[in-house]
């Protein structure tokens, strides 16, 4: 597959061409945020900075129908009703423009839940098959980024159909467009071949990109977490600032928990799947009034535990992270960047390792 060149000034036109075949979600600036919106011809996609939201909405919509229902009264006996169900419509072919490699890698982690855990989720599967990721490679790490802790990199290709490498220096700005999948190659078919000087420029930039600070050794984190699980003082301390707002879960490329509710309009309605958040007390509140995660400490513990302990324990064969395991986290840093009270999951993970080492100095893997 030859690499192509996409001029920045052609971006809107090329996206418009894609929009003839796909429902295109493109990032635009809205106030201080960069959010995905349905592409229209008058829109110029904003690719310079990572979007505020993750790309998961393309394959796991924030709200979607699971099915619709209709009640009908029996005309011969009006006290009786019948009910009819109709499956949700299949998803449209979709292209999301502008995710970062950490978002694209999130697709694999959503697959773990919806395709590999046990029951295959038919709607997720359909979205997944119908959606292409045109990803923008990063050129530097922000101070909230830690993708390399989880096995990612600035220009990681996994999960992408096309990877756009920004080349901005020297003359015409734009992207060296690299097709990762055959579907991605089709998208790029009408673009010119990337000129040699652009490829050279890209190679030079990649070579000059400094290595990130080495990632801590997280090999022992799954067990370390369980070792400090019962230390509620530790978790109370860690969650002292948390507001339970849930923004970390909504912006996370891998958080996949959802709620199911009904929306009724007279004699018909729909059953919806909606993003939910384990930061909410209502998430686990039982009918009896009992709540197994009654405090913010319990809830933050669950989120950290799921990402760094439960997930690697559930999928022990996977080894995408440098520590030889797989986390349900791509290190995108959105939960850090958008947290209103600066809860930092990296620091919690390091504190867990340190606390576990303190409790059992012989056993702990520990941060090196």
């Amino acid at each position, binding site marked *: 597959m030859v690499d192509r060149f996409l001029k920045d000034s052609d971006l809107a036109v090329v996206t418009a061409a894609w929009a003839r075949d796909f429902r295109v979600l493109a990032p635009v600036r809205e106030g201080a945020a960069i959010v995905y919106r349905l592409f229209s011809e008058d829109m110029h996609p904003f690719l310079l900075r990572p979007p505020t939201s993750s790309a998961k909405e393309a394959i796991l919509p924030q709200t979607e129908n*699971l*099915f619709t*229902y209709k*009640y009908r009264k029996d005309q011969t006996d009006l*006290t*009786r*009703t*019948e*009910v009819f*169900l109709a*499956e949700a419509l299949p998803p449209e072919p979709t292209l999301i423009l502008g995710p970062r490699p950490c978002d694209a890698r999130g697709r694999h982690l959503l697959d773990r*839940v*919806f395709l590999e*855990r*046990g*029951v295959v*989720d*038919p*709607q997720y599967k359909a979205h997944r098959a119908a959606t292409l990721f045109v990803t923008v490679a990063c050129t530097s790490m922000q101070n909230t980024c830690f993708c390399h802790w989880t096995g990612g990199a600035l220009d990681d290709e996994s999960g992408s159909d096309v990877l756009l490498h920004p080349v901005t220096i020297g003359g015409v700005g734009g992207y060296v467009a690299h097709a990762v999948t055959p579907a991605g190659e089709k998208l790029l078919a009408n673009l010119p071949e990337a000129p040699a000087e652009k490829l050279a420029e890209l190679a030079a930039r990649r070579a000059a990109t400094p290595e990130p600070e080495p990632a801590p050794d997280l090999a022992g984190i799954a067990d370390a977490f*369980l070792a400090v*699980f*019962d230390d509620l003082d530790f978790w109370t301390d860690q969650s002292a600032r948390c507001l339970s707002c849930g923004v970390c879960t909504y912006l996370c490329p891998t958080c*996949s*928990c*959802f*709620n*199911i*509710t*009904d929306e*009724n309009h007279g004699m018909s*309605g729909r*059953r919806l*799947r909606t993003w*939910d958040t*384990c930061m909410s007390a209502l*998430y*686990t*509140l*039982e*009918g*009896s009034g*009992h709540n*197994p*995660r009654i405090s913010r400490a*319990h809830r933050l513990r*669950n989120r950290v*535990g*799921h990402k760094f*302990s*439960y*997930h690697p*324990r*559930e999928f022990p064969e996977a080894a995408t992270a440098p520590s030889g395991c797989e986390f349900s986290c791509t290190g995108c840093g959105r939960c850090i960047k958008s947290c209103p009270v600066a809860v930092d999951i990296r620091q919690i993970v390091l504190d867990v390792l340190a606390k576990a080492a303190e409790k059992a100095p012989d056993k702990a893997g520990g941060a090196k």
Partner: protein
Amino acid sequence: MNANNPYIPELATIIETFDETPDVKTFRVVLQDPAKMAAFRFEPGQVAQLSVFGTGESTFVICSPPTRMEYLQFSVMRVGELTHRLHTLKQGDPIGLRAPLGNHFPYQDMQGKDIVFIGGGLGMAPLRTLLLFMLDNRADYGNITLIYGGRTPEHLCFKDELKQWAERGDMRVELTVDNPDAAWQGRTGVVPAVLTELAVRPENAVAVTCGPPIMIRFTLEALGKLGFKDEQIVTTLERRMKCGVGLCGRCNIGEKFVCVDGPVFTQAQLKGLPQEF
């Protein structure tokens, strides 16, 4: 379960409802498609998601045994939005049903053993499934004892059956209430105290317990003192659930999901999980 889409319920019809207690109502339902009803299979202890379209869905144990398939029975306490709505439904009304979900009681491992059922309140519902299943296969099991308690005599579920079981002669029934009325002829006091007083023997026995968390806590303590090992104690966990198929996330305990890995656990299994229930 719908083979193509686990979220789409089968349509069912309520064929009978009656009150068990002031706040528990029993529903008997059949699938609308007779062929699907004839093909429906489940194991004792498995649960179902019942839908009232327009209100939502909640999880209930199928409290009739797979040995009696004329209908599927559910006994539902009126506590929240969905259960309030369910309680207004009557015979002939349509509902949705997704089942069977979850694991089941390890009845194969209980064959040849003495069985002690220890229930409180509506915790009797899953025990009823297993008890009736065992009574329908009576020769496979040893002595069967039921210790069942409620707040008051009228809060005991399955009252007619409790009487029948006591009269069968091939099982022992001990009933107790916290607050007796004038007509009450059973015991007074909490379930764990009765268990201790009866000094149930742990040799070749399995205890199956379900009830409110506080009862479970003291029952486990009492069983321990009687010499029951963690492997000999079977219980079920309550948890808020939505999808019922291990995807929506909320019922996790560590990496286990109560909706697929449970709701039935041995005490030994529970001790191996993060203590968050």
